[in-house]
């Protein structure tokens, strides 16, 4: 292994990436556009579903205004005169509700509860996310009931899921997703989600496009003439992508801190999480670029893949709004692992039971991708060189 070659390759690739307008366009603008598009998409789903009304009850003179949930007419509300806690299943059925909100005033805070209709799981999930966003937007000092903490999922379902996860020796099912409230930095989750998206898009698009172009131009042929081995090319690529992603992370932190006052980088362990995630993206993108043959495949294959990954990573809608099975699955996906570990690290390390699992998921994916890339890099040789 020649360190000099790796250094020269990494340096060149890094400088090329930072000068490439494609990186700027796809890495920075694409996530912003997608957030907007996906947000609109989810909102339309609710807006045009006439049968998906939400029941609500506001007790006394609570400062919580139900209309703040509905500034764009996304919800249809049905006022329920009195809470019917005992027979809430009956209420859902009779009124055909997607969920039920109960707002009650307490001495020091407002208690907001959302009961999810588990028969309309998807819509109820989305509604609960928007409800939470609205609560956060108003920055109401809210306290959530046990029911709201689990976002309407019935206790027995959670118990079953937890039991299933434990018996399968997987992670314990968490009912402790971070909740909003006055004590929590309300931008934290979004900052981490957006960071994840930027890193994912920038790292993948930049490197996959560039490596494919290099494959097309048969640049690796020439590298080999200088005695550079395949594994040195691979490491040079991974390091340069890693550094590109790391630079973007620093920029993101800087902007977030300077303009939004969000300080999520004050814990060294969070930097470590970002590093693990960047390594994962770098190795994943190198693997993808080895497997793909033409740059035209990049959008076709990467866009749907990224949409799914970032959706299941909780970048667009919070993970707790996914169904229980998807929530559990997302823990084992790299983007979900990043969100879980990132949030846990940003709040306080180790407070989340998924923290170390998520971290090990990130690292094991990285190792796996690098290992497969090392095997597959011969593709470059066979696929390109033999056509001279």
């Amino acid at each position, binding site marked *: 292994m020649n360190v000099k070659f790796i250094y*020269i390759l990494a340096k060149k690739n890094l400088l*090329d990436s930072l000068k490439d307008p494609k990186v700027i366009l796809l890495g920075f603008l694409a996530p912003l556009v997608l957030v907007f598009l996906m947000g609109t998409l989810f909102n339309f789903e609710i807006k045009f579903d006439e049968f998906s009304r939400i029941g609500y009850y506001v007790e006394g003179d609570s400062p919580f205004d139900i209309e703040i949930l509905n500034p764009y007419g996304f919800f249809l509300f049905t006022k329920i005169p009195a809470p019917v806690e005992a027979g809430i299943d009956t209420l859902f059925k009779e009124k055909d509700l997607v969920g039920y909100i109960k707002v009650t005033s307490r001495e020091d805070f407002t208690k907001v509860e959302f009961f999810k209709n588990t028969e309309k799981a998807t819509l109820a999930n989305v509604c609960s996310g928007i409800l939470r966003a609205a609560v956060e937007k108003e920055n109401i000092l809210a306290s959530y009931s046990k029911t709201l903490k689990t976002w309407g999922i019935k206790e027995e379902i959670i118990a079953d899921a937890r039991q299933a996860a434990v018996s399968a020796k997987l992670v314990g099912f968490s009912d402790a997703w971070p909740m909003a409230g006055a004590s929590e930095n309300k931008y934290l989750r979004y900052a981490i989600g957006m960071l994840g998206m930027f890193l994912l898009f920038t790292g993948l698009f930049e490197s996959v496009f560039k490596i494919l172009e290099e494959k097309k131009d048969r640049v690796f042929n020439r590298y080999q003439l200088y005695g550079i081995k395949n594994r040195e090319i691979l490491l040079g690529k991974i390091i340069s992508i890693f550094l590109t992603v790391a630079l973007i992370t620093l920029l993101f932190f800087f902007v977030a801190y300077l303009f939004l006052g969000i300080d999520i980088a004050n814990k060294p362990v969070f930097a470590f999480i970002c590093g693990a995630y960047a390594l994962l993206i770098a190795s994943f993108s190198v693997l993808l670029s080895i497997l793909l043959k033409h740059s035209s495949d990049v959008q076709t294959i990467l866009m749907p893949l990224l949409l799914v990954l970032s959706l299941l990573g909780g970048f667009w809608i919070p993970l707790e709004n996914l169904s229980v099975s998807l929530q559990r699955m997302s823990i084992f996906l790299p983007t979900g692992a990043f969100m879980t570990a990132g949030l846990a690290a940003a709040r306080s390390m180790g407070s989340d039971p998924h923290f170390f699992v998520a971290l090990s998921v990130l690292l094991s994916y990285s190792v796996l991708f690098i290992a497969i890339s090392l095997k597959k890099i011969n593709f470059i040789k066979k696929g390109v060189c033999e056509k*001279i």
Partner: protein
Amino acid sequence: MGDIAVQFNSISKSFANSLILDKVSFECRFAESVALIGPNGSGKSTLLGVLCGHITPDSGTCRANGAHGCGEVSVALQYPSLFMEDTVRGCLKFYLDLEGSNSESRRRYDYYTDLFAVSPLFGKKLKELSGGELQKVNLILALTKKANIFVFDEPTTFLDSKSRNLFWKEIERKKMEGASIIYVTHNEEELKFFSNRIVMLYRATVFREGEYQELLNKFEYKNVYKVSFDNPSDKSYFLRQYTPPVGSVLLDTDACSFSIYMKTFSDPLKQFSEDVMYRVKNISVERFGLLDAFYLDGKGVFFER
């Protein structure tokens, strides 16, 4: 001649059930230049790919400098294999770094950039260069590399005559210094003046090998008459009345021209009256060359001699 620099030993290679090289063997010594010639698809570039280590032969061995691989081999392939988004400066600097930037390599780098006058192109991206300019960069990279075996695949394609002369002067100099040169060309002059030996590849095998004149003498053809017309109808009119001399071969080159390969120095067109000759646009006479032999492929003449 020096020791053996490159040795191809019974190299065979197939792509998709098509045999490209069939037990090809030859060698090139230090201080010697060997030209590889053959029609398109005869396996020349594949053979160079084997030498560079890009292509693994199905059987046979290739040894450079007495070892496998491409350690001290410098290559300028037909395809430049460069990242086209790079600037000329960035590209040259990068490969200089890979080579190991020291005073000697920088001296070579400065020398060749001056020689081919590429300094004005430094700020341009490779994709913005003309074919000739890109080929200059390709050649500079190959010549700058410290090596004692140089491999070129059609090195002077796209180059103007000045750059072509400069290149061949350099090659002669490298050869004098003891370097071994292997090149592919489709240019008769480059074959005649710059090669010590020629390897003729034909239908996946080495058809002939030897010095230029020695190989040429094996063909009975002396001259090639190239006749062109203003339009296809003139050509048809002409050919209707024409019977090629015994032993010569008439070859259609395109819609408005044809060539006559003659075994004697006699004029094959002397039988025609002025009104017929009036339709001819141009007649040129050239000496039969080794590359002409490949044009005759398919006429059944190539193997006749």
